[in-house]
């Protein structure tokens, strides 16, 4: 390798560094300009003073933010009991769609049917139908709780998506892995459990993380059927104070959770891609 300067860098390294510096400069300058444009131009708009007062009101923000945080705990709670149920059910559905034995063919059909149905209906509709429909049967307390049926709606919907991701992972494991396991005399169940699934699950962790980030956001849909979680709480404050700032507070709270999670999922994905190449 030809060394060109005192630090012992190659020509290529020097060239790449120059490129990197230049693109950083471009990105930095354009960000600053875009930011300035927003900060300078938006306040010039005729309605800005009104928007500022109703969306970015400091007093309202300070007063409502802690209570929004409390309400967000309900979102987190619903997430915490839905996520394991979704993982388990999603895995079961994915396995049902992969059964090899012809005798269990109906299971495959059921799995396909299930994922088609629940991926085909908007989440909010499923939440409405199950969340209002089932308690409408006149069930006694606590079985009429919207928490139960709203959560069920989320579990049914999200497990359909999660099942599809698991299935894509299972299919991505090379066929010869199955042959190799079977040639050793392992049963189909052991082949799946010890050989296919561990590889499939590792493969789909980033995608599943993105799914669960979406779930955390969609928990807010339960507000339509009763639970006073963060979105509903923000709505209550909005009516009380005739001000939209609580919605901005709620959005910030969601972002504080979802942005790091999304970054982490992307990081995992990038790491996997690097390992594979």
């Amino acid at each position, binding site marked *: 390798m030809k060394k060109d300067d005192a630090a012992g860098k190659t020509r290529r390294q020097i060239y790449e560094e120059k490129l990197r510096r230049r693109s950083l400069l471009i990105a930095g300058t354009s960000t600053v300009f875009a930011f300035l444009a927003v900060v300078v131009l938006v306040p010039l708009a005729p309605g800005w003073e009104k928007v500022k007062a109703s969306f970015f009101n400091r007093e309202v923000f300070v007063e409502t933010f802690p209570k929004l945080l409390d309400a967000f705990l309900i979102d987190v709670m619903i997430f915490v009991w839905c996520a394991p149920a979704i993982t388990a059910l999603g895995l079961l559905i994915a396995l049902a769609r992969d059964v090899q034995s012809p005798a269990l063919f109906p299971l495959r059909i059921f799995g396909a049917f299930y994922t088609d149905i629940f991926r085909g209906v908007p989440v909010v509709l499923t939440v409405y139908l199950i969340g209002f429909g089932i308690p409408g049967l006149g069930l006694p307390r606590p079985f009429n709780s919207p928490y139960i049926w709203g959560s069920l709606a989320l579990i049914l919907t999200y497990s359909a998506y999660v099942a599809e991701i698991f299935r894509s992972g299972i299919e991505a494991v090379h066929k010869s892995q199955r*042959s*190799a396991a*079977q040639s*050793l005399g*392992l049963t189909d169940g052991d082949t799946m459990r010890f*050989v296919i699934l561990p590889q499939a699950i590792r493969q789909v962790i980033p995608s599943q993380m993105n799914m669960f980030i979406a779930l955390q956001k969609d928990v807010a849909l339960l507000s339509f059927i009763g639970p006073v979680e963060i979105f509903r709480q923000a709505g209550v404050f909005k009516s009380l104070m005739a001000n939209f700032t609580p919605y901005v507070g709620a959005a910030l709270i969601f972002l504080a959770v979802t942005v790091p999670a999304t970054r982490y999922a992307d990081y995992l994905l990038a790491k996997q891609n690097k390992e594979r190449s």
Partner: protein
Amino acid sequence: MAKLSLRGVVKRFGENTVCDGIDLEVEEGQMVCLIGASGAGKSTVLRCVNLLEPIEDGEIFLDGVDISVPGLNPQPVRRRIGMVFQSYNLFPHMTAMENVMLAPRRVYGKSREELRPEIAELFTRFGLADRMEHYPDQLSGGQQQRVAIVRALAMKPEVMLFDEITSALDPQLVGEVLDVLRLLKESGMTMVLATHEMGFAREAADKVCFLKDGRILEEGSPETLFGAPKHPETKEFLARSLK
């Protein structure tokens, strides 16, 4: 009685007849090599013998017992017939030792402690004593194939099937894997190989079969098949592959 015998085995994939009436006898302790161009059906024959593919017609006998009966549970048969593939063979999420232990643990219900000494001995015998705790991607291709052979042997099979196990290897690694096959032959293992290694087949096989379009066109001892092939197609294939 032959250890393994195939009678009129037919295998189709849709309209495509891949095995078109295969007859083959493998005696106890014999090494039989299947040669032929790509797509001739060598891999498929081996996969059928291991019951990885159901056959449309014909019978396969192991020790005189028909193992190709439709509806037969394939697992007990597969335990008696080991198979090693061309590539993507080891389980990448397990160390070499775990790869080898998995099947004996699950199928024979043996414990790790029970298995460890005998498996360590197998590793040692095949020159892998210092590779037992490595993951497949930390091993060379030749080492991976030897681990795959050890993994199949740990089930104590009576017959071993090898599907072009050297063709994904760098030329300088082929030798170490072929040495393992010689070792196995000395120990009296019954083996069927699909192979492109003509030199090895000529030197080590007891019988060589030339496949073309799902049929065995010609078979015989390596001396006659390589030295004086009768069928023009065999001659042409050998002329091409020995070049």
